């Protein structure tokens, strides 16, 4: 019962926060709501026994990515969005597209249920700690994707600098 | 010139390359600064806590005005010649005189508006009788303008309060006595020199 109440709170709050985020005129407000949404997502991860991911969620998403958004918005200091309308004129087309893909994805998700069940139990994770469990898996079985991810980050660093740097005359 | 430039450049600070490198890598300059601040922490503070411990004014300080009291008559030495008022650049001295019973000049009112005074002490220099003085008092702040408007009685009281015997003597001997012997010898006569 307690589980259901907690989940219900998280679900309702997250959906309403997501709706608020995409409908704000002022980007700054939308980022503040997004921050609260990230906290709720981290809470949901804790609920699902993924502490390390919850910490990463807050450190990377809330602490780095959203601060980067804030920084860019402040750097550009644009106030014109307050005068313009929220959505593009073509928003009904977007809504129709969303509904269509929703139907498609829901059919595919709930039509085919997974067959193979893994052998990792929650008690196993809790015994060694989530960080250790993720770390062992990441550096043994998924080492190659991990290295690729680091390469992507390197490319992103170089790309961001190349794109945003002013040309030196 | 060449020598001067060499002194202010950086490489004179260190004996050789090695020392310069060490300074850079071990942040020796920062360490030196930190040592200095730590040392000053244990020195005696130089602060004077003003309202509690007042500083003795230096001799010759020009502070609050006072009218000199004649020790024989117990009245002000001032004869109401008006020289001080004439010399005052900020026009803050007001003198009102009348004719007395024996056809002498009586100083009825002698007022100084202290807020306008610039403490030039021209009045002291102008006075042929040394009848006005600037005491060494400096803390006489007040809450209203009225309190800083000094009448004759208050100026005489200033003399009694702030000019004790020894101070009085030193004051007139060393600093604010009129410098010309002319005035000193003819105490009975006041002459108006005018602005020259």
């Amino acid at each position, binding site marked *: 019962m307690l589980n259901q109440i907690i989940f219900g709170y998280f679900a309702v709050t997250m959906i309403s926060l997501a709706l608020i985020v995409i409908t704000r005129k002022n980007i*700054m407000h939308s980022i503040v709501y997004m921050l609260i949404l990230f906290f709720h997502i981290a809470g949901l991860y804790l609920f699902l026994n993924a502490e390390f991911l919850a910490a990463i969620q*807050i450190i990377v998403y809330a*602490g780095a990515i959203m*601060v980067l958004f804030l*920084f860019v918005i402040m750097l550009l200091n644009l106030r014109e969005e307050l005068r313009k309308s929220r959505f593009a004129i073509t928003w009904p087309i977007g809504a129709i597209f969303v509904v269509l893909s929703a139907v498609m994805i829901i059919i595919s998700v709930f039509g085919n249920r997974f067959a193979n069940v893994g052998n990792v139990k929650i008690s196993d994770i809790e015994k060694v*700690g989530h960080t250790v469990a993720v770390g062992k898996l990441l550096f043994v079985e998924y080492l190659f994707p991990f290295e690729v991810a680091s390469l992507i980050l390197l490319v992103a660093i170089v790309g961001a600098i190349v794109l945003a740097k002013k040309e030196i005359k | 010139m060449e020598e001067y430039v060499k002194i202010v450049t950086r490489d004179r600070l260190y004996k050789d390359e090695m020392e310069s490198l060490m300074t850079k890598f071990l942040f020796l300059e920062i360490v030196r600064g930190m040592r200095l*601040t730590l040392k000053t922490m244990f020195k005696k*503070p130089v602060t004077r806590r003003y309202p509690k411990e007042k500083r003795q004014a230096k001799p010759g300080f020009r502070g609050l005005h006072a009218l000199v009291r004649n020790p024989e008559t117990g009245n002000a030495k001032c004869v109401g010649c008006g020289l001080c008022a004439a010399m005052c650049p900020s026009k803050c001295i007001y003198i009102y005189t009348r004719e007395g019973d024996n056809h002498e000049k009586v100083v009825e009112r002698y007022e100084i508006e202290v807020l306008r005074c610039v403490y030039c002490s021209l009045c002291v220099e102008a006075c042929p009788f040394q009848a006005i003085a600037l005491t060494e008092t400096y803390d006489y702040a007040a809450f209203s303008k009225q309190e800083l408007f000094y009448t004759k009685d208050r100026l005489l009281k200033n003399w009694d309060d702030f000019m004790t015997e020894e101070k009085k003597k030193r004051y007139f001997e060393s600093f604010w006595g009129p410098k010309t012997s002319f005035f000193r010898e003819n105490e009975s006569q006041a002459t108006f020199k005018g602005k020259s």
Partner: protein
Amino acid sequence: MELLWEISIIVIKIVVVVSVVMFHVAYATYFERKVIGRMQMRMGPKEVGPLGILQPVADGIKSFFKEDIIPLNSDKPVFYLAPVISIMAAMSALAVIPFFDGFIISNINLGILFILAMSSLGAYGIVLAGWASNSKYAFLGGLRSAAQVISYEVSLGLSLVGVMLLAGSFNLNDIVEAQSSSVFGFYAIPQILGFFVFIVSAVAETNRPPFDLPEAESELVAGYFAEYSGFRFALFMAAEYIGMIIMSSLAVLCFLGGWTVPYYVLYLFPFLGAVPGVVWFILKLYACIFFYYWIRATLPRFRYDQLMALGWKLLIPLSLLNILITGIAKLII
């Protein structure tokens, strides 16, 4: 019933920690003014109470009763929210700090990560305050703070990786235990490089001088809280000092051995074993806080490009080098 008992114990712990920390925050301001005053050959606060000991109380009362001014064209909800975010981020990091053996509000396995997350959230308070005030000074302060926090968080996190490698845990309790059983008794010696990087980035992360560019008095008036007054201003100040206490206790726990004393010191002076752990913790904490004040009194403020260059070109490579050395050493031993 057992649940109720546990909850009440946690509540009591929270009340104790918050009140003790707020008391220390109040007296950290007094300590700062005294220390910096003496270093500049002044006296510091001396009028309120004997030796000015009641000065923080007077400051608190004054800031509480001052008028709360809100700029006309500010973004009001965000303006109200910003100091609250700031103080909340600072306070919630207190939950995972063990003050002495066994006294911790919540003993989670991700102690260090939690503190890093909360310290990065502190930037939101600053940035949003700068943006919502609708003032040029505050805006520039917020902008600088955003860039500074993003840059220095990286080196702050990386400098602690060496400690995590040596201790093999994120849990602050385990880290202290691991230190007391290590060769030197504390990690500041084997992790000297990491300790250096940590000190510099912690000073930058808490926006303290000489890295106080977001609130540079001489160029930006007061930076991001230029428009704040009264109680909200006090909240920002409290958040800054709590941030200092958090960073100092992180340094104490991760590098200086927490509440323990190295075994060789105990061997030389056996009577020191009778001193309770919390006393050691507070002594080390105040030594760190004193260091904050000491460099504030000594060093001039960095220029902005110098700050960025220091962060990206010196501290991050140094901390990466530290991780490399620590990893190799761990592998060999």
